[in-house]
């Protein structure tokens, strides 16, 4: 266990890992956050307004193509948030930096909301395109499963009182869950053939997405990424403060 060694002269990590110290992390996020909020708001507003007001309709999909500016970025962030939680969980399990465990905790609700947005916009898009709100298409299905994993992860955090125990257990769940999420993806693929148009508007530009759609989409994706970063950073700060409050209260009570 990394924390047992030389407590008399604690190592002062420098560089990247030094931000694993909660106080330092709070300082950093305090400095970075205003700019991040601003950039996120800016690119979201620009991207969405551009996409909504100033792009033409697609010749096949009509105006529904505008949904892409919400659907694709949120779907991407839903997956990326889980990947980030996975990485943070690994860092916690291996190096036991509290900030990374709390960052994973802070990212989960953001991930759920992203998943929900992807699901809702997809469903709303599906009604005119496929004539149904929902189909058991592999991609949609695996997204639904991802949603369930998020719910379970959050519920487990909520249910356990001791924060370190909760961090350990949720990290293990995140690892195992990731493996099973991938497994489910293959299982679902095997189980049903897809409806979801991937290639028709593929981000792989070769296909066909014209620049008129592509550039505002990139701006929106940037906006979602920035918003995600800002939210996670801010929420991690909240978690750190809650934890510090708890620690101080526990120390008071023990006297």
């Amino acid at each position, binding site marked *: *266990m990394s*924390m*047992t060694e030389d*407590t008399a002269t*604690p190592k002062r990590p420098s560089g990247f890992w030094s931000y694993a*110290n*909660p106080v330092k992390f709070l300082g950093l996020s305090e400095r970075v956050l205003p700019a991040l909020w601003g950039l996120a708001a800016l690119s979201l507003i620009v991207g969405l307004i551009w996409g909504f007001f100033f792009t033409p309709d697609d010749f096949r999909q009509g105006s529904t193509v505008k949904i892409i500016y919400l659907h694709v970025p949120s779907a991407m962030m839903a997956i990326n948030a889980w990947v980030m939680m996975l990485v943070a969980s690994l860092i916690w399990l291996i190096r036991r930096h*509290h900030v990374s465990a709390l960052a994973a905790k802070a990212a989960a609700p953001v991930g759920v909301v992203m998943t929900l947005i992807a699901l809702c916009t997809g469903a709303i898009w599906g009604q005119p395109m496929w004539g149904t709100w929902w189909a058991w298409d592999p991609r949609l299905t695996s997204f639904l499963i991802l949603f369930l994993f998020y719910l379970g992860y959050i519920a487990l955090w909520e249910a356990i009182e*001791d*924060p*370190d125990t909760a961090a350990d257990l949720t990290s293990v769940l995140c690892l195992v869950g990731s493996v099973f999420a991938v497994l489910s993806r293959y299982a679902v693929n095997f189980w049903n053939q897809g409806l979801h148009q991937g290639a028709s508007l593929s981000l792989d530009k070769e296909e066909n997405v014209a620049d008129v759609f592509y550039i505002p989409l990139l701006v929106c994706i940037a906006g979602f990424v920035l918003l995600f970063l800002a939210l996670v950073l801010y929420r991690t700060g909240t978690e*750190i403060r809650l*934890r*510090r409050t*708890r*620690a*101080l209260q*526990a*120390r008071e009570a*023990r*006297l």
Partner: protein
Amino acid sequence: MTLTIRDLCVARGGLPVLQGLSFTLAPGQALILRGPNGSGKTTLLRTLAGLQPPLAGQIDGAEEQIAYAAHSDGLKAMLSVRENLTFWADVFGQTDIAPALDAFALTPLIDRLAGTLSAGQKRRLGLARLLVTGRSIWMLDEPTVSLDVDAVAQFAAAVRAHLRAGGAALIATHIDLGLESEVLDVTPFRATQDTRAGASDEAFL
């Protein structure tokens, strides 16, 4: 075989409770742990038994040597005395449960379900389990709770026999067991507000 503790710090609920604890426990020796409620005796025993990691310090000679008896006995109400004891003997790779039954006068109860025993009889069964582990260091957390005078004497005799056979015992208790042994009061080692031993909350203080 000697258990050596050096500069140990143990934590519970994210905060250190005891720190700077050092002692040795040699074969044939018994050590009584004392301290007020909530001072951390149970936490110390659990750490030594390997159930939780220490915050700091070293524990040598504990691996696969310790038989731990906690506040609860791990008895199954729906198994008989014999079945309960045989199970633990099997888990620890032993076969003979007769000496354990004799030491705690359980032979007349051998076919009773554990759930129908009185509290004191249950406790005696829990202590008899120690004899079927074949382990050399006993870690006992308030072993004499709900025992009557006779049973306490049986227990003391069992501990003495264990020590004579080269075993050792670390016993947390509030009452006098009639054992001639050293006493370790944990009160001076209680963690203070400015203990900085890396408890899980430390980073936040």
